């Protein structure tokens, strides 16, 4: 239920609705899309990445001297959780062909394909299998399957959306594999939304010039992720899943090849050695680092662990200066602050409005531009709506969609959204939602080529943990595609590589070396990484927890 004082503004939204509906129906853009210059202007003035302290120089490691997102630099300059000398690396607890770190979409896709290529694999995952950002995507997946939409058009949209920083070969791989991913997933049992004639039902997303967003109602991620998980579990002879057992360090061999990892049992607090011919990092993103204090849409385990493990082992990172804020995080009620409101709402015709019920931006600008425009509307123009807890937001007019597409459309196509709000007495078929940007996606990551190889032999990366595919701004629907395309590729290339890979003596000396480098750079030993879990224990409780010295989040 919206508080009394918001009613006046809500009334204005209602009053302008019919006119905006006509505008929407006219087929013309409902608000003029920004030019290149206008985009640049709003980004530099209002996007959180451009705040003076948003970035700083990293003092150590392969990207030394580069400007990175401050919180990322802080994490990369943390000490290891382990004392390398305590491990007997000659007597591993686990041995396998391919070790997959992270049981989200990329990890599961990799395991399924690696098994097809004859490899045995182990998935080490932090929480349960599928407790991952992949489970949460609502809006959909881009893939160029329509006649008037060649994959090269998808390429152009992705490159432009990424501000032309994307690695061309990776974008080609992603867009060209897209149609096959649609079929592969359907053959595994994913239920795409279809039109009567069997063609896939598609919508626009931010930055798309063709409708190519496929979906499974608004449980796209849940349907795909559960299908992949179920398939993983149908191959127990090939794939071993170890839950609540995150990886905390990579192991190399004497020649610098990746040779496995150190696992940590979250519950018993034991460490284990896993030896593997090839290793795939599929640990996803970092929303739970709460960059610049933002709320996040991400799952509980999204703490950027893959970045630090790979970085310590010498892998290069790319575009770790750019953070994606999703324009439409929920701003009210407080209990769901930061939760994602899918971009599909705007794809279906939902319009962002200020407190006067007016349009102020084209609804489908690329995400960074759209977010910056929302922030400008609230911060500079003071046209936002304040919440009782001191947040601000703009309206996202969902009832317009019902008018545009007919009664019942929201309930049928956005059951998750409807459910989320009705619990708090807000019926999104008759009232708009209040939204503000929320920390959503790690644009950059570990640098890879189109075979998912890194600069470390035997180390592969797929999904949100990788960098380069999306340049400095990912478009909606391209990361579900990304984790499928590159998850499959990583599975294939890692399995093939494992067939002939020979490992030397296992070592953790890179961990010692990195700690030394930190000391030389005079970096205080007050933080450890990977972070593993965010800390939500109240300060007062922390003060009473006297039995152990907590450094990171877990002992």
């Amino acid at each position, binding site marked *: 239920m919206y508080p009394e004082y918001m009613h006046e503004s809500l009334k204005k939204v209602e009053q302008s609705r019919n006119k905006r509906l006509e505008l929407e129906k006219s087929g013309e853009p409902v608000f003029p899309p920004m030019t290149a210059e206008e985009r640049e202007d709003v980004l530099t003035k209002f996007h959180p990445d451009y705040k003076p302290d948003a970035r700083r120089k990293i003092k150590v490691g392969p990207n030394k001297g580069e400007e990175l997102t401050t919180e990322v630099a802080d994490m990369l300059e943390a000490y290891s959780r382990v004392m390398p000398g305590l491990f007997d690396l000659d007597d591993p607890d686990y041995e396998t062909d391919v070790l997959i770190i992270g049981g989200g979409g990329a990890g599961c896709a990799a395991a399924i394909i690696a098994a097809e290529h004859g490899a045995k694999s182990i998935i080490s995952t932090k*929480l349960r299998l599928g407790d991952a950002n992949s489970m949460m995507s609502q809006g959909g997946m881009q893939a160029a399957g329509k006649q008037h939409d060649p994959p090269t058009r998808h390429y152009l949209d992705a490159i432009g959306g990424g501000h*032309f920083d994307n690695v061309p070969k990776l974008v080609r791989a992603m867009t060209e594999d897209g149609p096959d991913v649609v079929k592969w997933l359907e053959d595994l049992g994913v239920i795409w939304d279809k039109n009567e004639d069997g063609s896939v039902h598609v919508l626009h997303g931010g930055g798309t010039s063709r409708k190519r967003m496929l979906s499974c109602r608004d449980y796209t991620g849940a349907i795909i992720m559960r299908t992949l998980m179920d398939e993983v579990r149908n191959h127990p002879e090939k794939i071993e899943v170890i839950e609540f057992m995150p990886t905390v360090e990579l192991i190399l061999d004497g020649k610098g090849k990746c040779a496995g990892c150190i696992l940590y049992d979250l519950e018993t607090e034991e460490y284990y050695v896993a030896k593997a011919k090839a290793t795939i990092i599929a640990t996803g993103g970092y929303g739970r680092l709460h960059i610049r204090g933002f709320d996040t849409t991400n799952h509980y385990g999204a703490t950027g662990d893959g970045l630090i493990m790979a970085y310590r082992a010498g892998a290069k990172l790319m575009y770790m200066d750019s953070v994606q804020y999703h324009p439409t995080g929920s701003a009210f009620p407080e209990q769901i602050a930061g*939760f994602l409101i899918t971009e599909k709402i705007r794809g279906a015709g939902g319009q962002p409005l200020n407190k006067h019920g007016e349009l102020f931006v084209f609804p489908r600008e690329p995400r960074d531009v759209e977010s910056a425009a929302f922030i400008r509307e609230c911060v500079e123009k003071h046209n936002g709506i304040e919440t009782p807890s001191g947040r601000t937001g703009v309206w996202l007019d969902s009832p317009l969609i019902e008018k545009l597409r007919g009664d019942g459309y929201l309930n049928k196509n956005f059951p998750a959204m409807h459910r989320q709000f009705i619990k708090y007495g807000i019926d999104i078929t008759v009232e708009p939602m209040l939204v503000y940007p929320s920390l959503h996606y790690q644009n950059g990551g570990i640098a890879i080529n189109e075979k998912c190889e890194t600069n470390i032999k035997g180390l592969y990366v797929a999904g949100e943990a990788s960098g380069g595919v999306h340049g400095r701004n990912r478009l909606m629907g391209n990361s579900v595609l990304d984790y499928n395309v590159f998850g499959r590729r990583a599975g294939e290339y890692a399995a093939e590589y494992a067939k002939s890979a020979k490992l030397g003596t296992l070592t953790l000396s890179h961990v010692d070396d990195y700690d030394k480098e930190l000391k030389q750079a005079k970096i205080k030993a007050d933080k450890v990484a990977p972070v593993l879990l965010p800390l939500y224990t109240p300060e007062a409780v922390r003060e009473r927890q006297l039995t152990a010295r907590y450094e990171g989040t877990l002992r």
Partner: protein
Amino acid sequence: MATKAEAKKKPAKTKAKTEKPEEKLVTVYIMGKAHQVPADATIMGAIEYAGYQIKRGAGCREGFCGACGTVYRVPGDYKIYAGLACTTLVEDEMYLTQLPSFPAEKPVYNIKKLAPTVSTFQKLYPEVFRCVACNTCSKACPQDLEVMDYIQAAMRGDIEQVMDLSFDCLCCGLCAARCPAEIVQYNVGLLAKRLYGKYLSPESKEVNKRIKEVDKNAFDKEYKELMRMAEDKLKKKYYDRDME
């Protein structure tokens, strides 16, 4: 069980944004132990406010993964309630426990070798036919799904209906925990969905055609051109492109 008076009051988390007026607190019993927590907290927020670092029992934190299934009662009411900790609000005096894991049968199968008919359920989940239609599963469902109806549909081999009714299932396991016939409803739903997607959903001819074109390398030339293009030309092409 601890009494309300023993419950420790925890100061509110320091929120940078604004000075909040004194928070209203209620008492909840977490696995039998009393804690004072903010009245408007979710169950998950309350557990963390009380000082627990959650390891099991939290995944997506937004109502998609089903990691946080919780059962609770309120005084003076015989009913067992079920909800997701991440999206259910606390109530004064509620006593709750999380059920992050519940043993469940999941047979291994080869999806390529199954038939989209009732025989598949007979083979893989014969216990489905023990359903006594008590509807306890539906009452336990935090998504308010008609769980019993989809189990009945499975008995009839109506895969499309099982798919439709179980589409929004989060596999939290609360139905299976409550079922007197020992059915694992959510796995039955998942199987039906995979069968529907693979065998019953109409095929998209356009997509198949496109895959063939890609296989023949039909876009190679155009890709190479784009990949070689000078940035200013590429930019112009991008900003000039037509919109559907």
